[in-house]
């Protein structure tokens, strides 16, 4: 098998999406989705239980996927993140809302006032769970980039992608950012980027840096 012959992608499954990352001296979990109790989460747990260092660890997966922890960890690391608050349902637009509950992952962008009660009722599951609200400015724009082991196809997000990898240790991620004209982007959220959905250049980048197997 030679690099670029296509076998890198097809061999992922037989290795359970676990690869050696020689530069980091660790394993990386390349499932791409690390939601609590799902395949990616247990892939890391299996390796941790066997005493192997793998990223993300269970702690890293939750720090990244629980919105207020993602933001707090970023702030601690000196990354630019928006102002945020945790609420039972109250919020003031313009805002990005992320649920903090086991049954919902979909976030919501609310730019104008008028439907706050209906939105908070839906996002909190009838005011049962909490929400995390990120404050936006009027001219803010929400956008996304793909991060593959600290690298991005998009040159303008490469530096940020490297920072995301260094701080959060999430090998594959779709990162949400808030862009304000004339300012550096604010990190807003991180979500799944399944290995199976990687583009050819992303796969080529990975293939140069990791080898399948424990």
């Amino acid at each position: 098998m030679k690099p670029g012959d296509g076998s890198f992608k097809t061999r992922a499954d037989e290795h359970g999406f676990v690869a050696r990352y020689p530069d980091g001296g660790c394993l990386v979990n390349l499932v791409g989705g690390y939601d609590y109790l799902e395949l990616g989460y247990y892939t890391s747990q299996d390796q941790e239980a066997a005493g192997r260092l793998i990223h993300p660890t269970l702690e890293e997966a939750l720090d990244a996927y629980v919105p207020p922890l993602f933001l707090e960890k970023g702030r601690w690391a000196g990354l630019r993140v928006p102002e945020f608050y945790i609420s039972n349902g109250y919020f003031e637009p313009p805002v990005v809302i992320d649920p903090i509950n086991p049954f919902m992952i979909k976030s919501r962008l609310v730019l104008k006032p008028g439907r706050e009660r209906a939105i908070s009722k839906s996002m909190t599951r009838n005011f049962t769970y909490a929400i995390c609200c990120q404050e936006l400015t009027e001219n803010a724009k929400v956008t996304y980039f793909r991060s593959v082991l600290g690298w991005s196809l998009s040159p303008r997000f490469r530096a940020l992608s490297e920072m995301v990898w260094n701080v959060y240790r999430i090998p594959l991620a779709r990162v949400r950012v808030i862009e304000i004209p004339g300012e550096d982007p604010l990190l807003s959220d991180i979500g799944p980027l399944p290995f199976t959905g990687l583009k050819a250049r992303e796969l080529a980048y990975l293939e140069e840096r990791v080898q399948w197997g424990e």
Partner: protein
Amino acid sequence: MGRIGIFVERHTITNSDEMNALMRFAQVARKMGHWTDFLFRPDIYKIPQYDAVFIRALTDPLNASYTAARMAEMYGIRVIDDPRSIRICCDKVNMYRHLMAAGVAIPETRFIAEPELTRSCAERLLIELGRPVVLKAPHSSFSMYVDKAETHEGVVRIGKRFFRRADRIVAQKYVKSESDWRVGILGGEPLYVCQYTIPRRQWKILTYTPEGRTVCGPVKGVPLARASRLLLQRATEAAAAIGHGLYGVDLKQAGDDFVVIEVNDNPSILAGDEDQKAGELYERLVRYLLPGENRS
């Protein structure tokens, strides 16, 4: 003087027994020279102002309580329950892995991934673990998402239901008993002992009617000095396999021996139940949260 933030949710303060226990805790803390405040979800940002945080809300890594616990940890603040214990105990697969690795006496246990749940897998489980087999979703709590199956059809049906929120489930050998023991452990030492009676015609200490009503038996406190030494030893070993915080270890008695059924983080502490024969329960919690800050 130390400041303890007690993280609560609405359901915590609407349960009078739980609220009374927290009032006793706050009163004891005050007498020991400390200050307590209740913290609700929107107060999580205030956590850095406290010396310790006591989580008294349903824990789950995807709930606000985990955010509160992890936030406290990030700021170097002592917290019950610590995030690692929440991560382990709220996921039964992770919890049993830790118990098995430490050689704790538990019923024979298997983990099943979703693609493995076939008829032949179910038949093998029934042969290896006997009938009935107990199935648990990893996120089970308060006896919910715990069921038993006598047939391979039952194993597959229940398993499919439990896979809705998780990629793995737990299968265990059934251990019959008339009552369960709960041993509270704090910092590696027994804190209280209770005996939970299983209601008639039930097999779990807590079950629910189709209308959602909770069915449970009486709770009997046992002074630590009168509890079986083997019971305390088994519970202490099980808690040590998880961490050094506050745990409620559930055990079943099998003859003269005890089998650990599970280790819970955030064990319930209800006035008149867990504290009925544990005179120093609240003092010890305060001392644990604020080591080196106690007048008495």
